[in-house]
């Protein structure tokens, strides 16, 4: 990296931290610190909601997904707009009316403290792990770019986030997120423009899209119903709807964003705006990946995108594979420029992919702990090797901004839940506002340190975007079941909801362990089993008490024994 790149990167990050600290100064009351005093307008809510979901993983891993697997990942978001409408109608007015700080606080009014605590703890586990992964992604970049120690990088980024999140609370998080999102999307737009501009003169924009399509990267919509494939229209619409309902309706990192809305109207408008622009935004990020794929049809790509993989294999072994890989690339490039048939091109593409797999197998043979996928490194490699001076710094700043915004939301929500649902509810019920703000800051620091620690062991989980969603999918269905019972049933008791949730969670774990079911469907299983089990338990309990009443009545009517 050149000095100008360093300057752009460091200046952007420091400006964001300084802006966050400045915006979030003088936070005295808990409502100020955790909910920005419920004063934000719809556009702040909207951008905060979007920036929370769009982490560095979105900007790093998603283009890599499109490079290796095509654009079908966009279908994961098909259920999101429907979820935004449902939540605007149901959850938003309820949360606003009750003036809750956390989503789980609402559960106590409906099911009692046990269910509230269980859900809060499930959230703390799942979001704690998820936030750690959002920290790990940018650490990965810098370790790749500069050969830094990945743990040291995690600590630096984590510390920057902790500084403004702990000092400024939700207000700092929400205001910085708007700028961070614009920087992140701007960086991606520049990368896309350069990828297209760097193609051979004879290859125009439409030709580039056609090449991506012929190579199977424009597989945006697939109507095939298949439970074992993660991304098709049905899993996206049904499973994606469940994930979005659970994520936006019950995950405190998102609920907290729209609880900051000045009124129900402002919060609803924020969510609906997200519902309209999220799909095009994801399409755009995947399209960047597809264009990077096309770029590498004309510029020799590395055999191994992960630079640490190269060091694990002997140079002679690698040289043979690299020569074969280069020959296939040249043949493919010639075929493309000569207008060869799609089947011919795909056959060459399959041979190239096979060579890459062969190389990764070699790496794994040398080091069984090595990551079997280098999807996450594709976009970074493109940025570092092909973008001009200054733009590299901008794109890296974009990725860091995204990482910081998502991590900040996560820490902010983890601290809120720890204080409101655990500390203030179970440990120190009479704690005053000043005291709670102080403890919230400490909780933010604690969760920041937890995430840094966990991030250091995250490197072997697999492609990052998938890892985050997989962690979420273990819990989202169950948590959603509890909230659906709370929102839409009147008679189900807290005990039934509690045991229903436990049953749903066991069902998810069994599915994950013993079936080949794709992870998006786990959300459906957790939710449906949780709801049905709770309804059956409730029915059983009510039938039992009904029988007891009849017995008492029968005994009362029996003639006395002489």
């Amino acid at each position, binding site marked *: 990296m050149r000095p100008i790149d360093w300057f752009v990167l460091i200046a952007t990050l420091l400006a964001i931290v300084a802006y966050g600290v400045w915006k979030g100064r003088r936070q005295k009351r808990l409502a100020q610190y955790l909910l920005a005093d419920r004063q934000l307008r719809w556009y702040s809510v909207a951008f905060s909601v979007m920036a929370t979901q769009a982490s560095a993983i979105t900007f790093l891993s998603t283009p890599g997904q499109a490079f290796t697997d095509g654009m079908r990942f966009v279908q994961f978001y098909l259920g999101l*707009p429907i979820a935004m409408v449902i939540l605007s*109608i149901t959850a938003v007015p309820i949360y606003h009316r009750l003036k809750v700080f956390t989503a789980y606080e609402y559960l106590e009014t409906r099911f009692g403290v046990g269910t509230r605590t269980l859900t809060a703890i499930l959230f703390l586990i799942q979001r704690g792990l998820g936030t750690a992964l959002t920290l790990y992604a940018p650490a990965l970049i810098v370790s790749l770019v500069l050969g830094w120690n990945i743990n040291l990088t995690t600590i630096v980024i984590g510390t920057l986030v902790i500084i403004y999140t702990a000092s400024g609370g939700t207000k700092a998080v929400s205001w910085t997120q708007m700028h961070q999102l614009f920087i992140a999307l701007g960086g991606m737009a520049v990368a896309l423009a350069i990828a297209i501009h760097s193609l051979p003169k004879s290859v125009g924009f439409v030709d580039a899209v056609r090449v991506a*399509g012929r190579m199977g990267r*424009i*597989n945006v919509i*697939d109507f095939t119903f298949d439970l074992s494939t993660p991304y098709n*229209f049905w899993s996206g619409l049904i499973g994606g709807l469940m994930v979005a309902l659970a994520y936006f309706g019950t995950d405190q990192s998102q609920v907290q964003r729209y609880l900051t809305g000045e009124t129900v109207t402002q919060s609803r*408008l924020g969510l609906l705006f997200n519902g*309209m622009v999220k*799909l095009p935004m994801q399409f755009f990020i995947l399209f960047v990946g597809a264009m990077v794929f096309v770029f590498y049809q004309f510029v020799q790509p590395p055999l191994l995108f992960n630079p640490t993989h190269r060091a694990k294999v002997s140079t002679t072994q690698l040289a043979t594979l690299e020569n074969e890989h280069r020959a296939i690339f040249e043949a493919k490039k010639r075929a493309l420029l000569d207008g060869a048939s799609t089947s011919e091109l795909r056959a060459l593409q399959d041979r190239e992919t096979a060579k890459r797999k062969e190389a990764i197998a070699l790496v794994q043979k040398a080091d069984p702990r090595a990551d079997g996928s280098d999807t996450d490194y594709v976009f970074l490699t493109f940025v570092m090797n092909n973008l001009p001076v200054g733009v590299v710094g901008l794109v890296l700043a974009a990725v860091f901004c995204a990482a910081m915004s998502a991590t900040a939301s996560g820490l902010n929500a983890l601290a809120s839940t720890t204080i409101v649902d655990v500390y203030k509810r179970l440990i120190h019920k009479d704690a005053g506002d000043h005291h709670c703000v102080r403890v919230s800051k400490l909780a933010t620091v604690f969760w920041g340190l937890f995430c840094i620690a966990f991030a250091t062991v995250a490197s072997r989980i697999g492609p990052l975007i998938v890892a985050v969603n997989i962690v979420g999918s273990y819990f989202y269905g169950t948590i959603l079941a509890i909230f659906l019972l709370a929102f839409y049933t009147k008679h189900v008791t807290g005990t039934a909801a509690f045991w229903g949730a436990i049953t749903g969670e066991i069902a998810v774990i069994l599915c994950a362990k013993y079936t080949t079911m794709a992870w998006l469907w786990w959300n459906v299983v957790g939710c449906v089993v949780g709801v049905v089990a709770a309804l059956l338990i409730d029915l059983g309990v009510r039938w039992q008490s009904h029988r007891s009443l009849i017995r008492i009545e029968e005994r009362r009517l029996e003639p006395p024994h002489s």
Partner: protein
Amino acid sequence: MSDEPNWRRLYAAVLITLAVLIALFYAFTKAFA
């Protein structure tokens, strides 16, 4: 309130946008895949 949006129309707009995007994505897939 007079400045309260017409929610039904807004919800419909979100869902219609979704339907249009699905149609566009499908057309894009068919055109280039």
